[in-house]
């Protein structure tokens, strides 16, 4: 705890030494008050990796910055700790939810679009190509802005009105570029199968549909998994974008938490640092796994 040895608000030198913070009444969140030991307890309970990252961050921060005001970085971490259940439970979970739904919709639409691109019907093929390029090449944020601000919030099907929550609109907005990129994966994988396979099955009297589903797609399925997972990770890392449109995910909620804690600028490091850490903890294993699969499949075929 040497690092955070700046004076603790409310525990000035005038007080007696027996005033152990742990004996103080457990206060809500009156700013300026802090239980020092709560922070250290949290430090102990944190995993080694979090500890290390925190330590690195702490080392980065010269004491002058912390001494500048009464509210110091240790307080800020304590605030983060208090808000953690809310930020993770309502915020990060929303990021994950958005990523799952987006991936599901994007994959389904992307497969259709990708197969459309290798269709024998020229207009369909061109149309699919155009749609793919359009959504592949526009910035996600721009697509999101457009979908979020111009799409209706509810749709009427006959009598029933289905209201679309904000995050669902975000899902549609993110699905567009995902769809386009999945389509490229499908098209690329199909085209990477040697033409000999098409010819061999053709000369065995397979129909085009049979060739596609029995011969070609099973062969590219494995090849599509690593890039697919890669796009999932990219998507997950794009979900904070929806915060700019007010969807209540981790960044939005972090911001709201900071607002509720009077916007102390010291809060920025723990809150945004935590967001980085949690995304890293989620995406890094996926990336490793993707790499492993890629190696495995590239040897096999």
């Amino acid at each position, binding site marked *: 705890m040497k690092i955070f040895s700046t004076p603790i608000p409310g525990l000035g030198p005038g007080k007696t030494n027996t005033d152990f913070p742990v004996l103080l009444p457990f206060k809500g969140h009156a700013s300026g008050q802090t239980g020092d030991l709560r922070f250290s307890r949290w430090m102990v309970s944190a995993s080694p990796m979090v500890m290390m990252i925190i330590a690195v961050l702490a080392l980065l921060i010269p004491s002058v910055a912390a001494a500048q005001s009464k509210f110091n970085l240790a307080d800020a971490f304590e605030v983060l700790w208090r808000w953690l259940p809310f930020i993770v439970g309502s915020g990060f979970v929303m990021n994950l939810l958005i990523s799952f739904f987006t991936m599901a919709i994007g994959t389904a639409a992307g497969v259709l679009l990708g197969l459309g691109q290798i269709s024998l019907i020229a207009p369909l093929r061109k149309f699919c190509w155009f749609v793919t390029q359009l959504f592949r090449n526009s910035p996600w944020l721009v697509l999101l802005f457009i979908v979020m601000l111009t799409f209706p919030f509810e749709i009427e099907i006959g009598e029933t009105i289905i209201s679309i929550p904000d995050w669902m609109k975000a899902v549609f907005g993110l699905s567009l570029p995902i769809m386009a990129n999945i389509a490229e994966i499908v098209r690329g994988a199909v085209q990477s199968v040697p033409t000999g396979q098409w010819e061999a099955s053709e000369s*065995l*009297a397979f129909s085009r549909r049979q060739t596609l589903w029995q011969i070609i797609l099973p*062969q590219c399925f494995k090849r599509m998994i690593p890039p697919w997972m890669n796009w999932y990770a990219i998507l997950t890392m794009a979900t904070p974008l929806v915060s700019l449109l007010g969807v209540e995910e981790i960044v939005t909620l972090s911001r709201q938490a900071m607002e509720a804690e009077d916007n102390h600028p010291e809060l920025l490091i723990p809150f945004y640092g935590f967001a980085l850490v949690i995304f890293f903890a989620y995406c890094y294993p996926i990336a490793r796994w993707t790499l492993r699969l890629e190696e495995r499949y590239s040897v096999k075929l």
Partner: protein
Amino acid sequence: MSENEMNSEQPIVSLKDVHKSFGDLEVLKGISFDVKKGEVICIIGPSGSGKSTLIRCINALNDINSGSIKVHGREVHDPKLDKLELRKKVGMVFQQFNLFPHKTALENVMMAPVLVLKQNKEEVRKRAEDLIRKVRLQGKEDSYPGELSGGQQQRVAIARSLAMNPDVMLFDEVTSALDPETVKEVLVTIKELAQEGMTCILVTHEMGFAKEVADHIYFTDNGVIVEHGPPSTFFTESSDPRTREFLSQIL
């Protein structure tokens, strides 16, 4: 004469003045020949002379610009022709084997009869096992193509074609992707097939093999048949200078 009527003297495959271009490049410039039931013919010629193109046209993998190709008296390049029907009658084996890598040897052989001919799976399995034995691969039924040597893969490819019970088999340089030591295994298999009376059209560089197995040899160059004849006379009495030059290089 009805086109459907079979006549033992009528050729199974019959080409008349076949022309074929890729864009500006005329690859076949009028090819004609007939193949009778049970006959084995070999096509030889320099690289790029259109041998593969020719053989692929018979199978309708390529279309032609003019002329006529008939299999069993039916015009192959008639747009109304059911290509699937044709391909059930004509088997083809490729230089690059083109086995389906995600299926075992036995599955490779069984797939087409089950999926295309909708035959009973158990019966097909029995026949497929016989075919695997026939190409001397017993014990390799459950191996994946990636686990087989080139020669073994090529024999699976032959069995796969045979499983459709074709009337004619087309072979396009089936040994040229193999190393010298495994070529022999494949040639033995084809020789046995020919001896059993299968009608075969082969493109090959293996002169010794052609000599041994062919009923008739055609030499193509630059899109035309330059010379042809039975092997007994073809190698010794060829009059065409190009053929002689080619033979001198190969032999």
